[in-house]
């Protein structure tokens, strides 16, 4: 920690938003500092105020709804909140730059990359055209874009998500700012690309001595890249300290809960995830005293009676919990969790598989770009190419891969929402590959689906009760109105909701509750097999844990089988018995979960595991920054031979020529690689 005044000091910042349903106190008196060249993280779940506080620093709050009501933001001694609009504009992009979450939408689609990078150079540094051009090329090189001259002419839609985020970083760096605020900079990116971008940002901030504020919900990202951490909950900072302190010696029950509710790659997974019950408070009327008290396992009357303030318990380590002393002393330890019932994988060995997918192929025809509307030149995208797997009754098969690898298409084809191009799908020993929709009706009772987005997969004009009752209607499973209502109530209770919620509409529920409704709908037909397509990736960490536990619970009670599709390796590891890894339409490795994570054989699986951040600063610092180079090739024009050879560190000529056959390399361990 350098001497002298901090670069940025946020003091007692309050931000309010006017909404049609009242005033939301989005940020309620937070204070923190950032020193020169230092990386500070602000961690918290959605709606906790972390993004709003950074927009307030930049003077970019959505007007007129949002406003700063109190506080100071001192940047190099100047209070940014008292500056005029023009003075503030001159600072934005010059001294403080910001990188946003969504690289796909954060660049202007009608301006070229060059125009967008050079814009701040013209405005702030008054550069000439030639000088700006040279600087833009230099910046692209800095962020790892090699063919800069060509890229400057291109438009955002011609670049991949990772490339666009590099461009955003280049724009941020353009005028050598003193501070960069990165708001969820890698949330929208794939895990291997995320690792590339984070390494790049860390490296640049060190080399150029730029201070960074990283705003994120991902604890792994924080552990790897932050010097100091501020944990936010319900518009307050509830814990602050160095990354080591916060991760290894958390002092607030919320932080502790957050750490425990994340599935982790580096810990045994045979316990259930601890979850934080309940929901964050409504910020229009926050509860008195400690805002976490309603969800806190250590709550006492004093928690509600005392106003929350951060206090130092150790040098540079502060918490807002009044019982923190007991946490330090070790007298407040949450009860350890029951081990998971271990009666899954072993019994399923001999059983007839409930789902058998053999050499499944799904090709899409897309119009070849560059051909006109009259010509019929089509290109084939092999979204799924020769995929085989089986799922036994009561088993969970995890299907992992990055976006565009075909994992969702596998799920949709198994559900017969897509017609397979080739191969067979057998359900309970019956071939359903070519069944007509009418013939599928009966089969569908046994196969259900849970979708990723609980916001768009429920009809907003139907009540929860109607949504859950619809499949009962379709299959005439409830004879009377009363019977139907009872069944809906039973299903709601089964997924941890209350009977009265049947009357509500989806928008009246939280994300986690909506996902529970989606699960209840899937359960209504008493299926034996459920395709879970990224069921938790849209949810906050603490909610994610609740849903995962629910899925596991239901599985052991109802003997369900899951095809669990996800991109998060830790979540897949936690819930799956076996795991299949997909890359560009092919399965590259399948193994029992422990075997796969302990002993990955395919270089892609190894790279994925390397790239996934682990929420422990010690582990992260010890790991070499090994990142996979390059990006996923276009499925329109996949590489010859092994589709992974363009990014594989082991690739040689044979890999470029021959498609690797899947080989059995251990009991229940299959890999498709020449080198394994």
């Amino acid at each position, binding site marked *: 920690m350098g001497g002298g005044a901090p670069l940025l000091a946020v003091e007692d910042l309050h931000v309010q938003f006017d909404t049609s349903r009242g005033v939301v106190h989005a940020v309620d008196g937070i204070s923190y500092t950032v020193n020169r060249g230092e990386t500070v993280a602000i961690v918290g779940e959605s709606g906790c105020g972390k993004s709003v506080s950074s927009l307030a620093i930049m003077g970019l709050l959505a007007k007129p709804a949002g406003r700063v009501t109190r506080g100071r933001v001192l940047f190099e001694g100047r209070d940014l909140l008292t500056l005029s609009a023009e003075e503030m*504009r001159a600072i934005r*992009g010059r001294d403080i730059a910001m990188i946003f979450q969504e690289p796909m939408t954060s660049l*202007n689609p009608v301006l070229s990359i060059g125009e967008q990078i050079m814009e701040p150079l013209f405005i702030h540094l008054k550069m000439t055209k030639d000088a700006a051009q040279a600087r833009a090329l230099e910046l692209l090189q800095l962020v790892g874009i090699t063919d800069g001259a060509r890229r400057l002419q291109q438009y955002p839609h011609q670049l991949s998500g990772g490339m666009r985020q590099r461009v955003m970083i280049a724009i941020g760096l353009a005028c050598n700012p003193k501070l960069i605020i990165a708001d969820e900079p890698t949330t929208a990116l794939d895990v291997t690309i995320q690792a590339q971008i984070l390494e790049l940002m860390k490296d640049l901030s060190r080399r150029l001595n730029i201070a960074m504020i990283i705003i994120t919900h991902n604890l792994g990202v924080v552990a790897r890249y932050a010097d100091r951490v501020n944990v936010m909950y319900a518009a307050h900072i509830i814990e602050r300290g160095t990354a080591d302190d916060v991760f290894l010696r958390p002092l607030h029950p919320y932080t502790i809960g957050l750490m425990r509710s994340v599935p982790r790659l580096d810990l045994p997974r045979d316990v259930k995830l601890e979850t934080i019950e309940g929901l964050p408070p409504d910020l229009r009327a926050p509860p008195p005293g400690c805002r976490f008290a309603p969800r806190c396992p250590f709550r006492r009357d004093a928690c509600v009676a005392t106003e929350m303030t951060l206090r130092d318990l150790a040098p540079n380590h502060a918490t807002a919990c009044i019982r923190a002393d007991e946490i330090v002393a070790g007298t407040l330890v949450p009860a350890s969790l029951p081990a998971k019932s271990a009666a899954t994988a072993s019994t399923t060995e001999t059983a007839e598989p409930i789902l058998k997918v053999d050499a499944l192929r799904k090709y899409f025809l897309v119009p070849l770009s560059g051909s006109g509307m009259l010509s019929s030149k089509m290109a084939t995208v092999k979204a799924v190419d020769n995929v085989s797997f089986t799922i036994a009754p009561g088993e969970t098969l995890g299907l992992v891969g990055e976006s565009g690898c075909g994992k969702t298409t596998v799920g949709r084809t198994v559900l017969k929402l897509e017609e397979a191009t080739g191969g067979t799908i057998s359900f309970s020993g019956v071939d359903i590959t070519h069944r007509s929709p009418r013939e599928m009706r009966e089969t569908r009772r046994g196969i259900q689906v849970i979708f990723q987005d609980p916001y768009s997969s429920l009809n907003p004009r139907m009540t929860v009760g109607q949504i859950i009752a619809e499949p009962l209607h379709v299959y005439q499973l409830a004879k009377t109105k009363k019977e139907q209502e009872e069944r809906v109530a039973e299903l709601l209770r089964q997924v941890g909701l209350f009977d009265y919620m049947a009357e509500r509409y989806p928008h009246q529920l939280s994300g986690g509750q909506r996902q529970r409704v989606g699960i209840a709908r899937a359960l209504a037909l008493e299926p034996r097999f459920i395709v879970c397509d990224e069921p938790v990736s849209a949810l906050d960490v603490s909610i994610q844990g609740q849903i995962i536990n629910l899925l596991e619970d239901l599985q052991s009670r109802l003997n369900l089988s899951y095809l669990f599709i996800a991109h998060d390796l830790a979540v897949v590891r936690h819930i799956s018995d076996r795991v299949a890894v997909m890359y560009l339409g092919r399965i590259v490795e399948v193994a029992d979960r422990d075997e796969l994570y302990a002993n990955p054989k395919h270089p892609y699986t190894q790279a994925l595991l390397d790239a996934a951040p682990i929420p422990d600063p010690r582990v992260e610092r010890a790991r070499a920054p090994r990142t996979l180079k390059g990006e996923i090739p276009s499925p329109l024009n996949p590489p010859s031979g092994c589709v992974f050879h363009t990014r594989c560190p082991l690739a040689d000529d044979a890999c470029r020529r021959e498609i690797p056959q899947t080989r059995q390399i251990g009991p229940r361990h299959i890999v498709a690689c020449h080198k394994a």
Partner: protein
Amino acid sequence: MLRYTLQRLLMVIPTLLGVAVLVFFMLRVVPGDVIEVKLRGDGGTVSQEVIDAERKRFGLDKPLIYQFGDYMYGLAKLDLGISLWTERPVTEEISLRLALSLQVAIMATIFAVLLAIPLGTMAALMRGTWVDYVVRIVTIGGLSIPSFWFGMLIMMALLYYYNWLPPITFTPIHVDPVANLTQLIWPAMAVGYRYCAVVARMIRSSLLEVLNEDYIRTARAKGVFENKVISRHALRNALLPAITVIGIEFAFLIGGLVVTEQVFNLNGIGKLFVQSVSRSDFTLIQGMVMMLAVAYIFVNLIVDLLYAVFDPRIRYGT
């Protein structure tokens, strides 16, 4: 791009063919006979022989399928035939009026777009303030007041305040630009008001949408001057949907000014349409429908090509 344009132009042929077949047969179903209207229309008594002879002269006695064949053969030679009423070539009848209608349409477009962009932008930027409300009232007026009535108001105002009315005889612009403009500026304004209202509302709503986009926040975070955020980052994106509306309205103006032309006593396409329909002048109607179809097709093509110019995401057949 060139290839795409050529392909689109080729598509014109089947489209026009379809229009030609439809309009030909639909007209034959409509009651009314041009020869009878022409010869007996004023209460004159003409013998059936004279009418039959006249029919024969125009080839109307032939079976329908032969007439259709003749029509198609003519189209292939770009010959639209002669008007059954005036007996002058259809192309000549149309081109006489087209210059005027086209000019009014172009002037109305210029008037509308020049007014609509600032109006729509101001309303979006000052949403919820009195400016927005004034613009809203003005545009709702444009949508609800019929153009011909607004035209009459203009004329009455001119008469009342200046004791002056625009000339009623048409002077081509290359002969006397001033006389031409003094006549046509009023109908252009009358129809331009509605046009402007449609475009301004479009710009307002699409600008409001664009201003919420992430890239606008990015531009502000870069320290871009606020006026540049609007003109360079927001308006360029917001104008895209407006281009479509402008194109459709323009194509409509070429043929759709039936009543407004009456009010200003303009001898344009709209007036010709009414005349030829009331006279059952089949060949002329056919020719005008074909002309309008061509106009719509071309305006749409130009709109699509403009899209490609303004939006780099759209590149046709590079």
